[in-house]
């Protein structure tokens, strides 16, 4: 392998591409890295297949590697892995420019999209069909939401940060536990999304969601912050808990819905693959993941300074997981 080979999350892909391109321009001695997109799972699977010239060097991930995956890795001889957190991905609700404004809270999201909501102290199948029914301050339009499908890492964040939060806030969780459910099961039930067509899973990318909103002007869609910013002329964003999602508000932790993005480096390849070390160092430098870097410009939410320093420290010592 005379070339860095990267695979994994399609969320990280655009950032990896920018870095790869700048890397190639800065280090013309090295070939430009090849960046595959196939999803975090597929990327990690390739990554954990073993150490050898025919295996990939870096796996991009939009979630932390799972323990069971790490185990597989280890049993295949991929024991030395360095984890690199590159920043955060903000998750926003956006509507068509022509649609009425929306200012959501987790409670609103939960009441609008959960499969079951508490009504008069009982859990019933979600009866809300209009936003007005969820929150009197909203407009009288149909609830129609395009949310990430289950294959997306974003979905997990959506569930944890909004549905479960809303579930707790409305007291539904309590209600279920009282009703005899175990805590864990109840939490899981909170994450169940209604299946009557009001909430539509999107397994494609954000551009598909955008196309759907284009075709259905009153619908709300879930996007990555960067995608929204690139399409701000068509979309308008909803606040969550009154906070407008921006790179700053997410970075400061004011905006609640975000997730970290990672990549994993196979240390066994560091010497063998020309440019791998340099690539990782280049990536983690402030000229890339810093607040002024091109990734932030594209929509990556930079980690706080301290976190970035920690990442660089981990990289320079090639810290093992």
């Amino acid at each position, binding site marked *: 392998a005379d070339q860095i080979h990267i695979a994994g999350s399609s969320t990280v892909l655009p950032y990896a591409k920018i870095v790869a391109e700048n890397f190639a321009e800065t280090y013309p001695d090295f070939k430009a890295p090849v960046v595959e997109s196939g*999803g975090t799972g597929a990327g990690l699977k390739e990554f954990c297949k*073993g150490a050898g010239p025919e295996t990939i060097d870096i796996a991009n991930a939009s979630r932390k590697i799972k323990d069971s995956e790490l185990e597989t890795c280890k049993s295949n001889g*991929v024991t030395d892995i360095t984890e690199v957190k590159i920043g955060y991905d903000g998750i926003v609700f956006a509507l068509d420019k022509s649609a009425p404004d929306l200012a959501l809270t987790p409670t609103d999201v939960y009441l609008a999209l959960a499969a079951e909501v508490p009504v008069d102290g009982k859990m019933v199948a979600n009866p809300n069909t209009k936003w007005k029914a969820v929150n009197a301050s909203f407009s009288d339009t149909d609830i129609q939401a395009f949310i990430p499908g289950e294959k997306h*890492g974003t979905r997990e964040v959506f569930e944890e940060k909004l549905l479960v939060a809303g579930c707790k806030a409305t007291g539904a969780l309590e209600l279920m536990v009282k009703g005899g*459910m175990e805590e864990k099961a109840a939490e899981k039930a909170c*994450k169940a999304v209604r299946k009557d067509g009001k909430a*539509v899973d999107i397994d494609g990318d954000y551009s598909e969601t955008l196309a759907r909103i284009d075709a259905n002007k009153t619908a709300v869609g879930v996007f990555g912050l960067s995608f929204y910013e690139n399409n701000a002329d068509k979309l308008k964003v909803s606040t969550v808990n009154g906070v407008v999602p921006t790179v700053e508000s997410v970075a400061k932790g004011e905006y609640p819905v975000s997730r970290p993005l990672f990549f994993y480096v196979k240390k*066994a390849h560091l010497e*063998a693959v*020309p440019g791998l070390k340099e690539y990782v160092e280049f990536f983690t430098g402030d000229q890339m993941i810093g607040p002024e870097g091109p990734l932030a410009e594209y929509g990556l939410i930079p980690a706080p300074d301290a976190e970035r320093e920690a990442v660089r420290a981990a990289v320079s010592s090639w810290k093992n997981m």
Partner: protein
Amino acid sequence: MGTSVFLLIIVLIGVAAYVLGRSRAIAVAAGDESKLHSRPGYFGSYSAILSLLPALLVLVIGMAIGSELVDRSLRNALPADVLSKPVEEQNVIFHMIQGMSGGIEKMTTEEKATAKADISTLKAILGSKGVPLAREPEPFMVDAAEIYSSNASNVRLSVGILSVAVALLGMFFALSRVSLTFRARNRVEHVVLAGLIISSTIAILTTVGIIGSLISETVRFFAVVPPLDFFFGTVWDPRFSAAGDANAHGQFGLIPLLLGTVYIALVAMLIATPIGLFAAIYMSEYASSRIRSIVKPLLEVLAGIPTIVYGFFALITIGPFFRDFSAQLWGALTGNYTNFIEAQSVLTAGFVMSIRLIPFVSSLSDDIITAVPRAMRDGSLGLGATRSETMKRVLLPAALPGIVGALLLTASRAIGETMIVVLAAGVAANLQFSPFQPMTTITVKIVNQLTGDLEFNSPQTLVAFALGITLFVITLILNVYALYIVRKYREQYE
């Protein structure tokens, strides 16, 4: 010397054998080639085959056996403490040594000396040669790697020499057999036939490969999710279990996917079949050759447009059109402007898919109708039948088995279609019967479960393999049945 050098030598011998065999045959014939049993070219081919085939066989098999032997001796030579480790661990070390041996061959003597002196530098040196090591090498590995690499090169050399010898032997043997009565053509044709047979088994091998590559993961899936729940479950919700039991896995019910698959394919076929068939009929019977030569390729372009394009067409144009149209229609009828067709629906997917299927139906049917002997047409026309009567009563019945075959082929395309459905029908695994509502298909789920951010060894990913094998078996059963029908038709008309 590398294997490729030997390969080149053998090929050269083969070329030489051809030339020699041919000229020897001409010499033997002494001017009257018709006395030869076969053309001189066949003698040449015979010699070439005899020198090439066995030699290549020896080369390939020899290399395989040789490397297996070398591997085995390496494994046996591993230190006892390594052998006592778990198998995965052993494998890792084994592969490291294998990798090292490749790297050591590229190292200069100085580097070797450095590495021998200080084992900790080895990793860096090998790295600079593009050989990654999974962990720090140990001294015993270096020795093992050296033995391994010398063994391997010995094997390569001896197998290479052996195969060259076999090639030469084959050539001389072939040349010695050149005579007037020698049936070179028959021999060559046997080899050709063998080649044809081998080609035809590629299909079987592909099937075996598909099943093989699906089966192990499927077994892992069924170890977690009971097959009954999978095959007869009516709810597809991989992350949520029915009973609310936190530890149970989600519901992997196949039925909604299966129904969606069949439903969408059915809608597509219902639209594509009449259009495609009539287009084919028009082109083969009515259209002038000019129109035919324009229309046919135009329609074929439809088949060539990537499915992803159709998907976006459905998503952006057709879906919204159906939705708005239905709203207008409903409004005009009842005064209440709500859409009864969803933008993403069975109808949208079926419709857009049918556009892509039209050329399949028409192109295949056209070829089949055209292949019906002209005398049939003349016979019917000569009796005063109109063209349409001729078509309906004579040509179509005669072409029926072929057309049924074409339709089945098309239907299977419909079932296997992925990208259009993803964008046009949605990913919602609904169990319902309205063509105006979204449904999803098996293929969509295969793609989604595999390419997402899901954990790669959880049942959520593994289910893709179970779905794959299910789809495979379904189409297999369908095809067997279809073939049976086609055969019955064929008997009737032959």
